[in-house]
Protein backbone atom coordinates (compact mmCIF):
# COMPACT_ATOMS: atom_id res chain seq x y z
CA UNK A 1 0.00 0.00 0.00
CA UNK A 2 1.91 2.99 -1.18
CA UNK A 3 0.87 6.48 -0.23
CA UNK A 4 -0.34 7.54 -3.62
CA UNK A 5 -0.79 5.56 -6.79
CA UNK A 6 -0.11 7.44 -10.04
CA UNK A 7 -2.86 7.81 -12.61
CA UNK A 8 -4.15 6.20 -14.65
CA UNK A 9 -5.10 3.52 -12.15
CA UNK A 10 -5.06 -0.04 -13.40
CA UNK A 11 -7.09 -2.98 -12.06
CA UNK A 12 -3.89 -4.26 -10.52
CA UNK A 13 -3.69 -1.14 -8.34
CA UNK A 14 -6.87 -2.20 -6.53
CA UNK A 15 -5.68 -5.71 -5.72
CA UNK A 16 -3.98 -6.26 -2.39
CA UNK A 17 -1.24 -8.76 -1.62
CA UNK A 18 -3.55 -10.75 0.67
CA UNK A 19 -4.19 -14.23 -0.69
CA UNK A 20 -7.88 -15.12 -0.69
CA UNK A 21 -9.18 -18.04 1.34
CA UNK A 22 -11.71 -18.82 -1.38
CA UNK A 23 -11.55 -22.30 -2.86
CA UNK A 24 -9.79 -22.48 -6.22
CA UNK A 25 -12.58 -22.51 -8.78
CA UNK A 26 -14.81 -20.16 -6.74
CA UNK A 27 -16.74 -17.57 -8.72
CA UNK A 28 -15.75 -14.90 -6.24
CA UNK A 29 -12.25 -14.70 -7.76
CA UNK A 30 -13.87 -13.47 -10.93
CA UNK A 31 -15.94 -10.97 -8.96
CA UNK A 32 -12.72 -9.62 -7.48
CA UNK A 33 -11.31 -9.26 -11.00
CA UNK A 34 -14.49 -7.55 -12.18
CA UNK A 35 -14.55 -5.21 -9.21
CA UNK A 36 -10.95 -4.12 -9.65
CA UNK A 37 -11.59 -3.54 -13.34
CA UNK A 38 -14.71 -1.52 -12.59
CA UNK A 39 -12.82 0.66 -10.14
CA UNK A 40 -10.05 1.17 -12.69
CA UNK A 41 -12.66 2.14 -15.23
CA UNK A 42 -14.01 4.68 -12.77
CA UNK A 43 -10.48 5.88 -11.96
CA UNK A 44 -11.44 6.46 -8.36
CA UNK A 45 -8.37 6.31 -6.10
CA UNK A 46 -8.38 3.27 -3.78
CA UNK A 47 -8.33 5.44 -0.68
CA UNK A 48 -11.61 7.05 -1.77
CA UNK A 49 -13.38 3.70 -1.97
CA UNK A 50 -14.81 1.88 1.04
CA UNK A 51 -15.84 -1.75 0.70
CA UNK A 52 -18.16 -2.89 3.44
CA UNK A 53 -19.16 -6.49 4.01
CA UNK A 54 -20.72 -8.89 6.49
CA UNK A 55 -19.99 -12.56 7.03
CA UNK A 56 -19.55 -15.34 4.51
CA UNK A 57 -17.22 -16.23 1.66
CA UNK A 58 -18.19 -13.17 -0.36
CA UNK A 59 -17.68 -10.88 2.61
CA UNK A 60 -13.95 -11.59 2.65
CA UNK A 61 -13.54 -9.43 -0.43
CA UNK A 62 -12.58 -6.07 1.22
CA UNK A 63 -9.16 -7.21 2.42
CA UNK A 64 -8.35 -8.52 -1.05
CA UNK A 65 -8.47 -4.99 -2.38
CA UNK A 66 -6.34 -1.93 -1.65
CA UNK A 67 -9.42 0.08 -0.73
CA UNK A 68 -10.60 0.95 2.75
CA UNK A 69 -12.67 -1.95 4.05
CA UNK A 70 -14.93 -3.04 6.83
CA UNK A 71 -15.61 -6.70 7.45
CA UNK A 72 -18.42 -6.45 9.96
CA UNK A 73 -20.93 -8.78 11.57
CA UNK A 74 -23.31 -11.13 9.81
CA UNK A 75 -26.05 -9.43 7.84
CA UNK A 76 -25.46 -5.79 8.76
CA UNK A 77 -23.18 -4.57 6.03
CA UNK A 78 -25.83 -2.40 4.38
CA UNK A 79 -26.50 -0.55 7.62
CA UNK A 80 -22.80 -0.01 8.23
CA UNK A 81 -22.32 1.18 4.68
CA UNK A 82 -25.30 3.52 4.96
CA UNK A 83 -23.88 5.16 8.09
CA UNK A 84 -20.52 5.58 6.40
CA UNK A 85 -21.99 7.09 3.24
CA UNK A 86 -24.18 9.48 5.24
CA UNK A 87 -21.22 11.01 7.04
CA UNK A 88 -18.87 10.70 4.06
CA UNK A 89 -20.79 11.43 0.87
CA UNK A 90 -17.42 12.06 -0.79
CA UNK A 91 -16.52 8.35 -0.67
CA UNK A 92 -17.50 5.63 -3.13
CA UNK A 93 -19.21 3.08 -0.91
CA UNK A 94 -19.61 -0.46 -2.20
CA UNK A 95 -21.27 -3.06 0.00
CA UNK A 96 -20.47 -6.70 -0.72
CA UNK A 97 -22.57 -9.57 0.50
CA UNK A 98 -23.74 -13.08 -0.23
CA UNK A 99 -27.12 -14.77 -0.44
CA UNK A 100 -27.10 -15.86 3.22
CA UNK A 101 -25.69 -12.62 4.57
CA UNK A 102 -27.77 -10.36 2.35
CA UNK A 103 -31.06 -12.16 1.85
CA UNK A 104 -31.49 -14.15 5.05
CA UNK A 105 -30.01 -12.57 8.18
CA UNK A 106 -29.73 -9.20 6.45
CA UNK A 107 -33.05 -9.35 4.63
CA UNK A 108 -34.69 -6.49 6.46
CA UNK A 109 -31.77 -4.18 5.79
CA UNK A 110 -32.00 -5.08 2.09
CA UNK A 111 -35.61 -3.86 1.93
CA UNK A 112 -34.85 -0.63 3.72
CA UNK A 113 -31.63 0.10 1.88
CA UNK A 114 -33.58 -0.12 -1.38
CA UNK A 115 -36.27 2.11 0.07
CA UNK A 116 -33.84 4.61 1.57
CA UNK A 117 -31.97 4.93 -1.73
CA UNK A 118 -28.66 6.18 -0.37
CA UNK A 119 -26.10 6.62 -3.15
CA UNK A 120 -24.17 3.38 -2.82
CA UNK A 121 -23.72 0.08 -4.59
CA UNK A 122 -24.73 -3.33 -3.29
CA UNK A 123 -23.06 -6.39 -4.80
CA UNK A 124 -24.49 -9.75 -3.77
CA UNK A 125 -22.42 -12.74 -4.76
CA UNK A 126 -25.13 -15.35 -4.97
CA UNK A 127 -24.15 -19.02 -5.02
CA UNK A 128 -27.44 -20.31 -3.59
CA UNK A 129 -25.72 -21.87 -0.57
CA UNK A 130 -23.94 -21.10 2.71
CA UNK A 131 -20.30 -21.85 1.95
CA UNK A 132 -18.49 -20.64 5.06
CA UNK A 133 -20.58 -22.88 7.32
CA UNK A 134 -20.49 -25.96 5.12
CA UNK A 135 -23.30 -25.98 2.66
CA UNK A 136 -26.59 -25.18 4.34
CA UNK A 137 -29.48 -23.94 2.22
CA UNK A 138 -29.83 -20.18 1.74
CA UNK A 139 -32.90 -18.19 0.70
CA UNK A 140 -31.98 -18.68 -2.96
CA UNK A 141 -31.30 -22.42 -2.72
CA UNK A 142 -33.56 -24.45 -4.98
CA UNK A 143 -36.21 -26.44 -3.06
CA UNK A 144 -34.87 -29.89 -3.93
CA UNK A 145 -31.19 -29.43 -3.06
CA UNK A 146 -30.24 -32.07 -0.54
CA UNK A 147 -28.20 -30.72 2.38
CA UNK A 148 -27.31 -31.90 5.86
CA UNK A 149 -29.54 -29.28 7.41
CA UNK A 150 -32.45 -29.93 5.07
CA UNK A 151 -32.25 -33.57 4.00
CA UNK A 152 -34.18 -34.05 0.79
CA UNK A 153 -34.37 -30.29 0.18
CA UNK A 154 -36.10 -27.38 1.86
CA UNK A 155 -39.22 -27.61 -0.25
CA UNK A 156 -39.27 -23.83 -0.10
CA UNK A 157 -39.71 -21.42 -2.93
CA UNK A 158 -36.46 -19.51 -3.50
CA UNK A 159 -36.32 -15.82 -2.75
CA UNK A 160 -36.21 -13.61 -5.86
CA UNK A 161 -33.71 -10.82 -5.13
CA UNK A 162 -34.47 -8.75 -8.20
CA UNK A 163 -38.19 -8.73 -7.50
CA UNK A 164 -37.56 -7.67 -3.92
CA UNK A 165 -35.10 -4.96 -4.95
CA UNK A 166 -37.43 -3.53 -7.53
CA UNK A 167 -40.48 -3.66 -5.28
CA UNK A 168 -38.56 -2.05 -2.42
CA UNK A 169 -37.39 0.90 -4.48
CA UNK A 170 -33.82 0.19 -5.54
CA UNK A 171 -32.83 2.76 -8.14
CA UNK A 172 -30.72 0.41 -10.24
CA UNK A 173 -31.25 -3.33 -10.58
CA UNK A 174 -29.00 -5.68 -12.52
CA UNK A 175 -27.86 -9.28 -12.72
CA UNK A 176 -24.35 -10.35 -13.67
CA UNK A 177 -22.41 -13.60 -13.86
CA UNK A 178 -19.01 -13.96 -12.26
CA UNK A 179 -17.74 -16.06 -15.15
CA UNK A 180 -17.86 -13.04 -17.41
CA UNK A 181 -15.64 -10.47 -15.67
CA UNK A 182 -15.65 -7.82 -18.42
CA UNK A 183 -19.43 -7.60 -18.51
CA UNK A 184 -19.66 -7.79 -14.75
CA UNK A 185 -17.07 -5.03 -14.49
CA UNK A 186 -19.11 -2.87 -16.83
CA UNK A 187 -22.29 -3.44 -14.82
CA UNK A 188 -20.53 -2.70 -11.52
CA UNK A 189 -19.05 0.51 -12.93
CA UNK A 190 -22.46 1.57 -14.18
CA UNK A 191 -24.02 0.70 -10.83
CA UNK A 192 -21.50 2.87 -9.00
CA UNK A 193 -22.06 5.75 -11.40
CA UNK A 194 -25.84 5.54 -11.16
CA UNK A 195 -27.19 7.84 -8.43
CA UNK A 196 -28.96 6.24 -5.49
CA UNK A 197 -29.02 2.65 -4.33
CA UNK A 198 -27.74 0.29 -7.00
CA UNK A 199 -28.22 -3.44 -6.62
CA UNK A 200 -26.25 -5.99 -8.60
CA UNK A 201 -26.99 -9.66 -8.11
CA UNK A 202 -23.91 -11.58 -9.23
CA UNK A 203 -24.34 -15.29 -9.88
CA UNK A 204 -21.11 -16.71 -8.50
CA UNK A 205 -20.87 -20.51 -8.48
CA UNK A 206 -19.69 -22.49 -5.47
CA UNK A 207 -17.20 -25.11 -6.60
CA UNK A 208 -17.25 -26.93 -3.28
CA UNK A 209 -20.89 -27.30 -2.24
CA UNK A 210 -22.62 -26.71 -5.56
CA UNK A 211 -20.49 -28.36 -8.28
CA UNK A 212 -23.76 -28.61 -10.19
CA UNK A 213 -23.44 -24.86 -10.80
CA UNK A 214 -20.70 -25.56 -13.36
CA UNK A 215 -23.52 -25.51 -15.89
CA UNK A 216 -24.32 -21.87 -15.09
CA UNK A 217 -21.68 -20.94 -17.63
CA UNK A 218 -23.92 -22.41 -20.32
CA UNK A 219 -27.22 -21.34 -18.83
CA UNK A 220 -26.59 -17.62 -18.48
CA UNK A 221 -27.56 -15.40 -21.38
CA UNK A 222 -27.73 -11.72 -22.06
CA UNK A 223 -31.20 -10.29 -21.53
CA UNK A 224 -32.84 -9.74 -24.91
CA UNK A 225 -33.91 -6.19 -24.07
CA UNK A 226 -32.25 -3.06 -22.74
CA UNK A 227 -32.75 -1.58 -19.30
CA UNK A 228 -35.91 0.39 -18.63
CA UNK A 229 -36.63 3.32 -16.35
CA UNK A 230 -40.21 2.12 -15.98
CA UNK A 231 -40.54 0.02 -12.83
CA UNK A 232 -43.80 -1.55 -13.99
CA UNK A 233 -42.19 -2.71 -17.22
CA UNK A 234 -39.21 -4.06 -15.29
CA UNK A 235 -41.62 -5.93 -13.00
CA UNK A 236 -43.37 -7.51 -15.98
CA UNK A 237 -40.02 -8.68 -17.34
CA UNK A 238 -39.23 -10.31 -14.03
CA UNK A 239 -42.43 -12.35 -14.30
CA UNK A 240 -40.85 -14.30 -17.16
CA UNK A 241 -37.31 -14.19 -15.83
CA UNK A 242 -35.55 -17.56 -15.76
CA UNK A 243 -33.00 -16.43 -13.20
CA UNK A 244 -30.20 -16.39 -15.77
CA UNK A 245 -30.95 -13.21 -17.71
CA UNK A 246 -27.90 -10.99 -17.45
CA UNK A 247 -27.67 -7.23 -17.74
CA UNK A 248 -29.21 -4.11 -16.33
CA UNK A 249 -32.94 -4.53 -15.75
CA UNK A 250 -33.87 -1.17 -14.30
CA UNK A 251 -32.40 2.32 -14.13
CA UNK A 252 -34.62 4.53 -12.00
CA UNK A 253 -34.73 8.28 -11.59
CA UNK A 254 -35.41 8.57 -7.87
CA UNK A 255 -33.47 11.24 -6.06
CA UNK A 256 -30.91 9.74 -3.67
CA UNK A 257 -31.51 10.14 0.04
CA UNK A 258 -29.82 13.06 1.71
CA UNK A 259 -30.24 13.97 5.36
CA UNK A 260 -32.22 17.13 5.98
CA UNK A 261 -29.92 20.07 6.22
CA UNK A 262 -30.75 23.31 7.96
CA UNK A 263 -29.22 26.64 8.74
CA UNK A 264 -26.30 26.14 11.04
CA UNK A 265 -25.74 27.96 14.28
CA UNK A 266 -22.60 29.93 14.97
CA UNK A 267 -21.95 28.82 18.53
CA UNK A 268 -22.70 25.58 20.33
CA UNK A 269 -23.90 27.71 23.25
CA UNK A 270 -26.99 28.59 21.23
CA UNK A 271 -28.24 25.05 21.73
CA UNK A 272 -28.75 25.58 25.45
CA UNK A 273 -30.98 28.60 25.07
CA UNK A 274 -34.11 26.48 24.99
CA UNK A 275 -33.37 25.27 28.50
CA UNK A 276 -32.89 28.66 30.11
CA UNK A 277 -35.48 29.72 32.64
Amino acid at each position, binding site marked *: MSASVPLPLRPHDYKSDV*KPVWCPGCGD*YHVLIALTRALAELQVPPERVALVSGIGCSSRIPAYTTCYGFHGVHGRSLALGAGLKLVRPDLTVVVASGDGDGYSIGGNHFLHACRRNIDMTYLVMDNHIYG*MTKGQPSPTTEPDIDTALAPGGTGLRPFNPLVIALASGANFVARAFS*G*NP*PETAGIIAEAVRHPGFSFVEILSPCVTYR*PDQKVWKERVHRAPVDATDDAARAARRLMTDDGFNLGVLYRGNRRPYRPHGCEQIGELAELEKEFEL
Partner: protein
Amino acid sequence: MSDGAPQVFSLADLYAIAYQIEADAAERYTMLAEQMEMHNNPELAGIFRDLARVEAIHRDEIASAAADPDIVAHACKVARWRSGESPEAVDLSEAHYLMTPRDALEMALAGEERAFDFYNRLSDAVDPDVKRLAAEFVSEELAHVELCRSLLRRCPVPAPADRWIFEDPDLPVSQE
Protein backbone atom coordinates in the same frame (compact mmCIF):
# COMPACT_ATOMS: atom_id res chain seq x y z
CA MET B 1 -14.76 -16.52 -24.14
CA SER B 2 -13.21 -14.17 -26.67
CA ASP B 3 -16.08 -12.97 -28.75
CA GLY B 4 -16.42 -9.24 -29.30
CA ALA B 5 -12.67 -8.98 -29.79
CA PRO B 6 -11.15 -5.51 -30.16
CA GLN B 7 -10.48 -4.13 -33.60
CA VAL B 8 -6.95 -3.55 -34.78
CA PHE B 9 -6.41 -0.36 -36.74
CA SER B 10 -2.65 -0.01 -36.49
CA LEU B 11 0.56 -1.66 -35.50
CA ALA B 12 0.48 0.24 -32.21
CA ASP B 13 -3.00 -1.18 -31.53
CA LEU B 14 -1.79 -4.70 -32.12
CA TYR B 15 1.20 -4.24 -29.83
CA ALA B 16 -1.07 -2.84 -27.14
CA ILE B 17 -3.55 -5.69 -27.49
CA ALA B 18 -0.80 -8.30 -27.49
CA TYR B 19 0.66 -6.63 -24.43
CA GLN B 20 -2.70 -6.85 -22.65
CA ILE B 21 -3.19 -10.49 -23.64
CA GLU B 22 0.10 -11.43 -22.05
CA ALA B 23 -0.48 -9.19 -19.04
CA ASP B 24 -3.88 -10.77 -18.40
CA ALA B 25 -2.40 -14.23 -18.76
CA ALA B 26 0.38 -13.43 -16.31
CA GLU B 27 -2.12 -12.00 -13.83
CA ARG B 28 -4.38 -15.07 -14.02
CA TYR B 29 -1.52 -17.50 -13.60
CA THR B 30 -0.29 -15.48 -10.64
CA MET B 31 -3.74 -15.67 -9.08
CA LEU B 32 -3.82 -19.41 -9.63
CA ALA B 33 -0.34 -19.77 -8.16
CA GLU B 34 -1.49 -17.85 -5.08
CA GLN B 35 -4.61 -20.00 -4.82
CA MET B 36 -2.51 -23.14 -4.93
CA GLU B 37 -0.08 -21.76 -2.35
CA MET B 38 -2.97 -20.86 -0.10
CA HIS B 39 -4.41 -24.34 -0.54
CA ASN B 40 -1.15 -26.19 -0.07
CA ASN B 41 -0.67 -27.56 -3.56
CA PRO B 42 2.98 -26.53 -4.06
CA GLU B 43 3.45 -28.54 -7.26
CA LEU B 44 0.68 -26.65 -9.02
CA ALA B 45 1.73 -23.38 -7.43
CA GLY B 46 5.14 -23.90 -9.00
CA ILE B 47 3.67 -24.64 -12.41
CA PHE B 48 1.48 -21.56 -12.33
CA ARG B 49 4.35 -19.40 -11.13
CA ASP B 50 6.40 -20.65 -14.10
CA LEU B 51 3.56 -19.94 -16.49
CA ALA B 52 3.09 -16.49 -14.99
CA ARG B 53 6.80 -15.79 -15.34
CA VAL B 54 6.84 -16.85 -18.99
CA GLU B 55 3.80 -14.73 -19.79
CA ALA B 56 5.35 -11.77 -17.99
CA ILE B 57 8.51 -12.17 -20.09
CA HIS B 58 6.36 -12.17 -23.23
CA ARG B 59 4.56 -9.11 -21.98
CA ASP B 60 7.80 -7.26 -21.40
CA GLU B 61 9.26 -8.38 -24.72
CA ILE B 62 6.23 -7.00 -26.48
CA ALA B 63 6.56 -3.75 -24.58
CA SER B 64 10.16 -3.31 -25.64
CA ALA B 65 9.46 -4.33 -29.24
CA ALA B 66 6.61 -1.82 -29.38
CA ALA B 67 8.89 0.94 -28.12
CA ASP B 68 5.76 2.69 -26.90
CA PRO B 69 6.25 4.33 -23.50
CA ASP B 70 2.48 4.66 -23.15
CA ILE B 71 1.69 1.07 -24.02
CA VAL B 72 -0.10 0.48 -20.70
CA ALA B 73 -2.43 3.40 -21.21
CA HIS B 74 -2.87 2.51 -24.86
CA ALA B 75 -3.76 -1.07 -23.91
CA CYS B 76 -6.36 0.23 -21.43
CA LYS B 77 -8.03 2.03 -24.32
CA VAL B 78 -7.91 -0.43 -27.19
CA ALA B 79 -7.53 -3.88 -25.64
CA ARG B 80 -11.15 -4.33 -24.64
CA TRP B 81 -13.21 -7.38 -25.32
CA ARG B 82 -16.83 -6.39 -25.58
CA SER B 83 -17.81 -9.65 -24.02
CA GLY B 84 -15.72 -12.44 -22.62
CA GLU B 85 -12.07 -12.11 -21.90
CA SER B 86 -8.74 -11.73 -23.62
CA PRO B 87 -7.77 -15.11 -25.09
CA GLU B 88 -5.06 -16.17 -22.68
CA ALA B 89 -6.91 -15.18 -19.54
CA VAL B 90 -7.53 -18.69 -18.32
CA ASP B 91 -10.85 -19.56 -16.73
CA LEU B 92 -10.42 -19.51 -12.96
CA SER B 93 -13.64 -21.45 -12.49
CA GLU B 94 -11.86 -24.49 -13.96
CA ALA B 95 -9.48 -24.55 -11.03
CA HIS B 96 -9.64 -26.90 -8.07
CA TYR B 97 -7.31 -27.21 -5.15
CA LEU B 98 -6.63 -30.86 -6.04
CA MET B 99 -5.96 -30.12 -9.70
CA THR B 100 -3.06 -31.95 -11.35
CA PRO B 101 -0.31 -30.73 -13.66
CA ARG B 102 -2.33 -32.19 -16.50
CA ASP B 103 -5.32 -30.01 -15.56
CA ALA B 104 -3.06 -26.98 -15.56
CA LEU B 105 -1.65 -27.84 -18.95
CA GLU B 106 -5.11 -28.33 -20.40
CA MET B 107 -6.06 -24.95 -19.03
CA ALA B 108 -2.96 -23.38 -20.54
CA LEU B 109 -3.48 -25.17 -23.85
CA ALA B 110 -6.99 -23.78 -24.14
CA GLY B 111 -5.60 -20.28 -23.60
CA GLU B 112 -2.84 -20.69 -26.17
CA GLU B 113 -5.34 -22.05 -28.69
CA ARG B 114 -7.59 -19.07 -28.16
CA ALA B 115 -4.63 -16.73 -28.64
CA PHE B 116 -3.68 -18.58 -31.83
CA ASP B 117 -7.24 -18.17 -33.11
CA PHE B 118 -7.25 -14.47 -32.29
CA TYR B 119 -4.01 -13.68 -34.14
CA ASN B 120 -4.86 -16.06 -36.93
CA ARG B 121 -7.99 -14.05 -37.66
CA LEU B 122 -5.75 -11.02 -38.27
CA SER B 123 -3.86 -12.77 -41.05
CA ASP B 124 -6.10 -11.10 -43.62
CA ALA B 125 -5.45 -7.62 -42.20
CA VAL B 126 -5.04 -4.86 -44.79
CA ASP B 127 -2.21 -3.05 -43.02
CA PRO B 128 0.94 -4.95 -44.04
CA ASP B 129 2.71 -4.17 -40.74
CA VAL B 130 -0.22 -5.52 -38.76
CA LYS B 131 -0.35 -8.55 -40.99
CA ARG B 132 3.36 -9.22 -40.53
CA LEU B 133 3.26 -8.85 -36.74
CA ALA B 134 0.10 -10.95 -36.48
CA ALA B 135 1.82 -13.69 -38.42
CA GLU B 136 4.74 -13.54 -35.96
CA PHE B 137 2.35 -13.91 -33.05
CA VAL B 138 0.55 -16.77 -34.81
CA SER B 139 3.77 -18.72 -35.10
CA GLU B 140 4.69 -17.99 -31.48
CA GLU B 141 1.31 -19.15 -30.23
CA LEU B 142 1.51 -22.20 -32.39
CA ALA B 143 4.82 -23.04 -30.76
CA HIS B 144 3.18 -22.62 -27.33
CA VAL B 145 0.29 -24.85 -28.37
CA GLU B 146 2.72 -27.50 -29.53
CA LEU B 147 4.70 -27.22 -26.32
CA CYS B 148 1.54 -27.70 -24.24
CA ARG B 149 0.50 -30.66 -26.32
CA SER B 150 3.86 -32.36 -26.06
CA LEU B 151 3.90 -31.82 -22.31
CA LEU B 152 0.37 -33.18 -22.06
CA ARG B 153 1.36 -36.33 -23.86
CA ARG B 154 3.76 -37.04 -21.03
CA CYS B 155 1.08 -36.58 -18.34
CA PRO B 156 -1.10 -39.43 -17.10
CA VAL B 157 -4.69 -39.37 -18.36
CA PRO B 158 -6.95 -38.14 -15.57
CA ALA B 159 -10.08 -39.63 -14.06
CA PRO B 160 -13.50 -38.11 -15.00
CA ALA B 161 -14.14 -34.43 -14.43
CA ASP B 162 -16.12 -34.91 -11.21
CA ARG B 163 -13.36 -37.02 -9.66
CA TRP B 164 -12.46 -34.31 -7.16
CA ILE B 165 -15.52 -35.07 -5.10
CA PHE B 166 -14.19 -38.59 -4.56
CA GLU B 167 -10.54 -37.72 -4.25
CA ASP B 168 -11.09 -35.33 -1.35
CA PRO B 169 -10.16 -37.34 1.75
CA ASP B 170 -11.12 -34.59 4.23
CA LEU B 171 -14.48 -32.91 4.37
CA PRO B 172 -14.56 -29.15 3.88
CA VAL B 173 -14.14 -27.17 7.09
CA SER B 174 -16.67 -24.84 8.62
CA GLN B 175 -15.14 -21.37 9.04
CA GLU B 176 -17.53 -18.69 10.17
